[in-house]
Each structure stands twice: as structure tokens, then as C-alpha cells.
């Protein structure tokens, strides 16, 4: 799937730990880890809203669409 989760980038920018974000958002660290590693199949709007509120960012800062072909050529270069 072409959706990339940039949660780790945003966490690094905000200098926030995953545990702290999980606590603020109100979900388990395990679930947040599933989201961070890109294993999640879907994200609820409420979870996304809470994450954006906690990190003071937009959904587009966390989620990004990348075409598989361009991603492959980017990785090659």
C-alpha cells in the first residue's frame, strides 16, 4: 500500500516519546507501535484527531501517499 506513516518523524520533531503520546491520545503503546511501523490497516478519525492535537500537526504531516513506482525508484537512487 502506498500510505506511509511519518509518526516517528513527527515524534522526533516534537521531541516526544511514543509512551507519552500513547498516554495523551489514550491508546496503548502496542497499538501506537502498530501504527508507527505501518502495520495498521486503518486509522479511526478520532485517533487521528487526537494524535494531531497532541503533536500540534495536520493529518498530512503524519500520513503521506507515495506511489509504489516512485517509491521504488527513490529507494534505488
Amino acid at each position: 500500500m502506498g500510505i506511509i506513516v511519518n509518526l516517528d518523524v513527527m515524534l522526533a520533531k516534537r521531541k516526544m516519546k511514543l509512551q507519552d503520546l500513547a498516554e495523551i491520545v489514550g491508546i496503548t503503546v502496542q497499538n501506537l507501535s502498530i501504527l508507527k511501523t505501518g502495520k495498521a490497516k486503518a486509522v479511526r478519525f478520532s485517533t487521528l484527531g487526537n494524535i494531531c492535537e497532541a503533536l500540534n500537526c495536520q493529518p498530512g504531516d503524519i500520513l503521506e501517499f507515495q506511489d509504489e513506482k516512485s517509491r521504488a525508484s527513490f529507494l534505488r537512487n
Partner: protein
Amino acid sequence: MSRIQKVSSYLLAIFNFLLIVLPLFSLSIWLFMDVEPIKSLIAEGLLFSPVETPEGTINISTIKWTHLSKFTSFMAILIGLLPLLAGLFVLKAVFRNYQKGEIFNAYNARHYRYLGWIFFLDAFIAEPLSHALMVLAVTLSNPPGHRIISITFGSPNIEALFCGILVIVISWIMVEGYKLQEEQKLII
């Protein structure tokens, strides 16, 4: 969820009780069939229904039992009981999971499929074999030429077959439920 767990605990206790009592009960009837009150209960037809043979219906209490015919009829009862006991074992495994709160998982779905196959086993093998042995047992003391062995396929077999199909369809539904739950785990 707690309601399922609570009822599962009661059902587990019932399954355990039946797994011990049913074989013991069958064995004790055949061991003490000449002893009161079992003798009178058999005579009244409360413990056994009359056996249908091609030559007519035979009441168990009118038969002159030999050790061989007693053993054959006990084996017939035991073979008839085996699918039920196997089914109870399978149900125990499933309800132990329900007790732990694990409803939709691959293990439960697989065990429901086993239960369906046990119904098929009952319909096609255990029930006809049990009936054939019972007919043989009750006619074993007859003079040569009047001893019967017959295999029948009737409405009890069709009932078991129908139950087997239903339970196998339920197992497929359980597999779908398991897939949905696995997917639900990945929705954050």
C-alpha cells in the same frame, strides 16, 4: 462477555459431569442388569427402548442374556456413545476458551469443524454399527437361522447428518469472525 464466561463455566462443569457419568452409567446397567431396581426399570422400558429388528420389535427384558450377548450389546451402546463423548471433549475445549474470553479464534473454528465431522461419523458409522450390533445381541440367543445382523439408515442418521452440516457451516462463520477480529486488531 462476562455472561458468556459465566455460562461457559457452568457448561464446562456439566460436560465434565457427563463425561464421567455417561460411560459409568452404561457400564453399570450391563453389569447389574439382573439386580433390582435396574431389572424392573429395564422391564418397564425406562432404561432401553425396544430394539427394532427385521422380524419385529424386541423388548430387552424378554431376552435370555448370555455373557457374549451382554458384551455385544454393551459394545453396541458404547459405540453409540462414542460420538457423544468425543463431542463433549470438543465442546469442553471450545468452552474453556470461551471461559477465558477468547471467542473468535482459529482454534475454536477448527474445533467446531471437528464437531461437525463427529456428527457425520455418528450418522454414517457409529449409529448404524451400534444398531447392527444391538440387533445381533438381542437375536444371538435365537436358534441358528434366526440370528440377525442388519444395517439401517433412517431418520436419526439424517438428523445427525443435518446437525453436522449446520455445525460445519457455523465453523466457516467462526473462521470469518476470526478474520474480522484479526483485522479489527489492526484498526487503530
